[in-house]
């Protein structure tokens, strides 16, 4: 594991959010170089070579995603920067946008040049009012310098960037939910195929990339795909921003390579469990990822390693729970969230998630019935893979994780009609 600062290299530089300061540190040089010296396809090749995988949740290779967009298109192509950051536990994109917004703008310029896009939207969650203002100022500054608009860096390339605020809906973090929302509609995910790369925003081919993903692009183009690809484990290259919250002494954001283990992240970086208590469970990749038990934390925090142990790297949000936590209560809180955020299009999600929430609630309230755990597991199975978008899975996967990894705690709640952990 290694602590390499790529994305957060300049995060503590005073006034890094202002264009002159950003440029003093070499900012916009990568974009200038790319626009003057590269063919668009060569940029895509470089990003492919880097092995960069999407930092939003799915971990899909960014270069490959770009290459799905047809080169020639009758309709305009679009880039949507996903700054919706709604996955519970996640607060890393907020840091990038607040402290180093020009890095994102530069990433957007290079990405749009590579794919032949002339309009990019930054879809930022509505609650991030301050961050939206900072981004808008950064975009305005970039226009003034001639890095956005017409004839960028003296080249025959034009690009407009529009900062677009959402209005409070978790589902708009899903690619097609985001696109629907951007079009001024309810954020109800679309049936796929066609995928956004073919039919996306305003019917045009569209790429949706997370903030952190795009912030990697200037660095990759500055130092090369090979350089980036050599950092961290194979197929899980580069660094990522792990956002650690919950019962740790030093919650916060840690930029690390993906071979860091959950144990190292919690104990070496986040300062261990608060109050010297024992660890009980860790959510490794946002609330949608199945938890790890305390005896499972020697796993690497890479996309592949977490998938291998039946969880997922997701958005890199690590939620740490100590021994005083009542797992059925956390499962309930999680289900309440997903029930609230379900858009209601698909029956398994719309009906199944609130149903599980009601069962979890009666278990927590000491009114659980024998067979409730198996009933919830059965509902999970009937949601998984049976919905248009991953929200159904996002509700069922962690629930199944809590139920199977802490089954005895649920059963005990049902038998004893109370919480043993919290009454201790």
């Amino acid at each position, binding site marked *: 594991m290694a602590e390499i600062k790529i994305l957060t290299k300049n995060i503590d530089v005073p006034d890094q959010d202002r264009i002159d300061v950003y440029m003093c540190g070499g900012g916009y040089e990568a974009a200038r170089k790319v626009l003057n010296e590269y063919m668009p396809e060569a940029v895509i090749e470089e990003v492919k070579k880097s092995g960069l995988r999407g930092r939003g949740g799915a971990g899909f290779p960014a270069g490959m995603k770009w290459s799905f967009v047809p080169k020639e298109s009758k309709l*305009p192509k679009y880039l949507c920067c996903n700054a919706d950051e709604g996955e519970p*536990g996640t607060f890393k994109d907020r840091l990038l946008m607040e402290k180093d917004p020009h890095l994102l703008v530069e990433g957007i310029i290079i990405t749009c040049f590579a794919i032949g896009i002339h309009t990019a939207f930054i879809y930022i969650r*509505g609650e991030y*009012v301050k961050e939206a203002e900072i981004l808008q100022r950064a975009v305005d500054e970039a226009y003034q310098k001639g890095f956005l608009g017409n004839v960028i860096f003296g080249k025959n390339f034009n690009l407009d960037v529009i900062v677009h605020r959402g209005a409070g809906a978790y589902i708009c973090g899903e690619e097609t939910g985001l696109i629907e929302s951007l079009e001024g*509609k309810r954020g109800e995910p679309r049936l796929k195929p066609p995928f956004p790369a073919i039919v996306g925003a305003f019917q045009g081919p569209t790429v949706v990339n997370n903030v952190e993903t795009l912030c990697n692009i200037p660095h990759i183009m500055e130092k090369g795909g090979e350089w980036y690809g050599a950092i961290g484990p194979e197929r899980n290259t580069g660094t990522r921003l792990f956002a650690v919250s919950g019962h740790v002494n030093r919650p916060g954001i840690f930029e690390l390579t993906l071979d860091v283990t959950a144990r190292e992240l919690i104990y070496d970086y986040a300062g261990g469990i608060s109050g010297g208590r024992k660890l009980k469970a860790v959510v490794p990749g946002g609330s949608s990822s199945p938890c790890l038990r305390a005896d499972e934390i020697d796993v690497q925090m890479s996309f592949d390693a977490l998938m291998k142990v039946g969880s997922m790297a997701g958005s890199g949000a690590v939620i740490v729970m100590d021994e005083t936590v009542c797992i059925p209560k956390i499962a309930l809180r999680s289900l309440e969230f997903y029930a*609230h955020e379900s858009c209601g299009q698909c029956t398994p999600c719309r009906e199944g998630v609130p149903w599980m929430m009601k069962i979890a609630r009666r278990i927590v309230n000491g009114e659980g019935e024998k067979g409730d755990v198996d009933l919830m597991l059965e509902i999970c199975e009937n949601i998984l893979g049976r919905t248009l978008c991953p929200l159904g899975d996002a509700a069922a996967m962690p629930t199944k994780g809590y139920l199977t990894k802490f089954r005895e705690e649920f059963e005990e709640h049902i038998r004893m009609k109370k919480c043993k952990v919290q009454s201790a």
Partner: protein
Amino acid sequence: MTIVTEKINLTPELKKEAEKLMLRYPDKTAALIPVLHLVQGKFGFVSVELEEQVAELMGLSRTRVHGVLTFYTMFNRKPVGKYLVQVCTNISCTLNGAEETLKKVKQKLGIGVGETTTDNKFTLMTVECLGSCGTAPVMQINDDYYENLTEQKIDEIFDKLN
């Protein structure tokens, strides 16, 4: 943000601003959410009358506007207090004492969740993850985040707003 209960209308200036927003998009109807933000920013909420006027201005059906308005949690369809207080109760905040935070805020304001103080100053709501989990527990008051909340901090915050 002011609370107006009599009939309210989109002002000419507001309409002009809305039309400017519509020009930003390949399809003007994509400006619906920004326009609703604009209207709410002016009136504090989006009433049925305003809904109709937005629909007319943007050439949309009332059902489309209503559908969008009701889909997103940030839009208020009824007046809220001068300060909209939203306490996050998602997992990370819960682990760090959101239940106590909420209890304290309720006590401080003397209202329950979903209620507004009689002087129309505060409305209290709970909210899902605000993306500030490293500094939990967190609440948002209007556009501002208040992080690492403690009982003392909550007292100070509200005493200042009073």
